[in-house]
């Protein structure tokens, strides 16, 4: 017997979010690692993994296709292409015998949505109370926050582009709010 194991994100982008002043797109399969490192070991671990681990909370670094963001005093999220970085978990896992750190695979925990377009920030503000002007939330900022009742990870990838990730079961709610806003119409000016 052969079985075709297909990935199933369990959610789709509705048509109303596929065109207009902001469009949404689902992120496909990704490697996502939650990395925890004692601050003393941050630079050595980063070097050993070939990663940038920003020291400041809320700062993301994107190198090639790999994004690392500092989410807490000793916490980083690493997100990258599955086929290119499949070995990253093992590499980090091995390091954990040497340094005070931990790595946990959370690749499948999240659903990511890429928002692009001049109304991208407005779309984020439908559920997220953060001030998204560029001074307060510059390109490259990445933080956990909320989208109404859903906890999210918010990453600004450009002036008019964001990546929003939430836990898998919250995705229909998060995308549902976006669709409701798109259907209702965007701010006139």
């Amino acid at each position: 017997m052969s079985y075709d194991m297909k990935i199933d994100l369990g959610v789709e982008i509705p048509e109303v979010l596929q065109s207009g002043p902001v469009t949404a797109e689902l992120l496909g399969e990704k490697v996502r690692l939650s990395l925890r490192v004692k601050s003393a070991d941050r630079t050595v671990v980063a070097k050993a993994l070939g990663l940038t681990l920003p020291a400041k909370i809320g700062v993301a670094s994107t190198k090639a296709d790999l994004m690392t963001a500092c989410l807490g005093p000793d916490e980083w999220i690493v997100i990258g292409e599955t086929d290119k970085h499949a070995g990253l978990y093992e590499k980090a896992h091995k390091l954990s015998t040497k340094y005070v750190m931990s790595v946990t695979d959370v690749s499948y925990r999240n659903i990511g949505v890429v928002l692009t377009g001049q109304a991208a920030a407005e779309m984020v503000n439908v559920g997220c109370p953060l001030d998204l002007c560029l001074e307060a939330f510059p390109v490259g900022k990445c933080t956990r926050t909320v989208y109404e009742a859903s906890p999210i990870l918010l990453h600004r990838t450009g002036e008019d582009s964001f990546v929003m990730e939430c836990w898998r079961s919250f995705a229909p709610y998060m995308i549902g709010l976006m669709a409701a806003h798109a259907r209702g119409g965007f701010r006139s000016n």
Partner: protein
Amino acid sequence: MFLIHCPYCDEKRPETEFAHAGEAHIVRPNAAEQSEMTDAQWSEFMFIRDNKRGDSCERWWHVNGCNMFFNAVRNTVTDKFVKTYKMGAKRPSNAQIQKWKEGV
């Protein structure tokens, strides 16, 4: 909705990212201390809280942010946050709280 300064993020963030976590500076006795405590002393630790009117030290959790617990002085009459500070810092004296209020 409050804006709360998270001492770890060093930013003011909206209240919906946070959870209140009760009175601050109540230290859990270690194993040796626990075994020496009378039932009355243990009850005091477990169940008795100040519920202060005025400047009060309380714990908050930036659950939808940096995930850190921290402490805050907040006035329970005016609802205003006086100051937030990292976990592990000592309970501020009344004089210190006064200075913070005066912006010193």
